[in-house]
């Protein structure tokens, strides 16, 4: 049974290229991807997770305001009784940060996994398979998706 993941760029961030690539890679790996696009609010993430009975939420942020944009996100998920893996990835701090510190900061905020901007799509796929107990046979992956970019 395909797992459903919610994908989007949080806050007022408009960097769409990363999630476009992720969408294609996750879809090709057999996930049902609900791509909310850029400039997605916390509420939209939560609503989509509920509406699609999602297995995981993947938040992307490139522009440096991730911390402000994600404040209270996990409380919101909890108050909607959503208990599922949450990933965040991209350029998570403004400037030339110390990555370990940044990673810990977002873990403390409640994210299950934190990815930097060097992350290859395959790493996200591997992590999801692990966290969602996707078996090897399930991992076969479907056919390459059509060429259209979904935004």
């Amino acid at each position, binding site marked *: 049974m395909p797992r459903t993941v919610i994908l989007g760029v949080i806050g007022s961030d408009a960097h769409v290229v990363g999630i476009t690539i992720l969408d294609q890679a996750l879809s090709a790996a057999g996930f049902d991807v609900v791509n909310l696009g850029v400039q997605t609010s916390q509420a939209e993430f939560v609503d989509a997770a509920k509406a699609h009975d999602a297995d995981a939420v993947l938040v992307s942020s490139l522009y440096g305001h991730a911390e402000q944009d994600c404040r209270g996100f996990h409380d919101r998920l909890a108050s909607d009784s959503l208990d599922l893996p949450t990933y965040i990835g991209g*350029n998570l701090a403004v400037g030339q940060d110390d990555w370990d510190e940044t990673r810990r900061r977002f873990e403390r905020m409640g994210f299950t996994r934190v990815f930097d901007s060097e992350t290859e799509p395959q790493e996200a796929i591997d992590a999801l398979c692990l966290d969602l107990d996707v078996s090897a046979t399930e991992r076969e992956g479907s056919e390459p998706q059509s060429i259209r*970019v979904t935004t």
Partner: protein
Amino acid sequence: MVRDEQLTESELGRIAESLRDDWPTAQAVDFEESVEYHGSLPDEKRFAHVLESADKPLLQPRAGVPRLDKQVELLTHLWEEGGADLLPTTIDSYTRDNEYAKAQEGLDEARESGEDTLNGFPAVNHGVDGCRELVERVPGPIEVRHGTPDARLLAMVTFAGGFQSFEGGPISYNIPYTKSRSLAETIEHWQFVDRLTGLYTEFGVRINREPFGPLTGTLVPPSIAIAIGVVEGLLAATQGVKSLTLGYGQVGNLVQDVAALRALRALGEEYLPDDVTVTTVFHEWMGGFPPDEARANGVISLGGATAAFARPDKVITKSPQEFRGVPTMEANAAGLRTTRQLIDMLIEQDVTIDGIDEEQAFIERSARSLLDSVVSLGDGDVAQGTLRAFETGALDVPFAPSQSAKGAVLPARDDKGRVRILEFGELALDDEIREIHRTHLDARAKTEGRACSFRMVADDVDAISDGRLIGRPKEGWT
């Protein structure tokens, strides 16, 4: 219904009035007093004057931090240690969303903690006096660079604050920067900005306007970038803008980049009214950078070399830290100096590269086709034509996050690394042009022994950050 007509003075006034309550600093804006203030600025701080009288490419970095003192320090460093010719002030993302309260929070936080958690300078919050202090304390001409779909208040405050150049436009600051802003609305909002610019110009303050040429920065076919730049130029000219800088972002192929910059200048001069002075700006590679400063320096250098061959009026530089995040001021200055070294070593060499004319002709032909479709879709009205063109996909931008664009166009590189179009959607390009793109891409597909697919596009998106130009096949998902 928005039409490509000049706003009347009363409309301009009405809109300006309506914005005065958006943030307290708006109250201080006084047009006549501001015109006088501009008059007090010395020649070397007049942006249009410096840019239009230059005899070789001027360098300008991007830079913006929340606090005023720090911004002065940053720009002074870029001037002195980087040798910048023109200065920027990059605006933070909250201001771009007109969320001045959030920007204020970020600014207050920065002031208290000493840490910059805003990704730019919140000019509206700093207000007219803050901007003027900045303009006075920095050593050169200075431009507002942002990404704000509704930049009306930002323009009011920063123009009153002494800035004489303003980046952006209704398409280029909507399509790549937002999801759900209506294009009709952004056109109206930019008519205000351009009309305000026009009014200043009529009163002797020649404010420079610069449509954002690179769009999504990611494999944008030159013809699309140029067509959109010219459309924004036309809309601006209607409102009285006289100093216009059309932009283009490096794709990394020397021949295509030089050809595109020449086509940009040629079409700009052809399509825009004679009394508009057209200059060009070349942006160093705007897509994903290598996660390695040494390789990033290579990318920047290729930008510098291209600029030396193409001789745009201005070059926007990148820093070796582009991949990681907002650069330190030292890295930013380093990007300037690396670029300068390439330009200064190459510019007197007078290098002539083969095949540029042919590529330029192809770009012009395609851009013309797009431009003509805008005009005809609008029955002669560029504003209406723009709306129809984006609705129908006759004009489209690859990787556009905006719902106002079809987002059906997909680019890929050909076997020489020139950006071609793989998926056209409804793009207003005739079959002959499409065939040329297809032939080029088929040749590449053949070289690689694979079909054209999204995977090829994804490989091209990653290629430069992976250390090359063309995304040749590698292992991984297909």
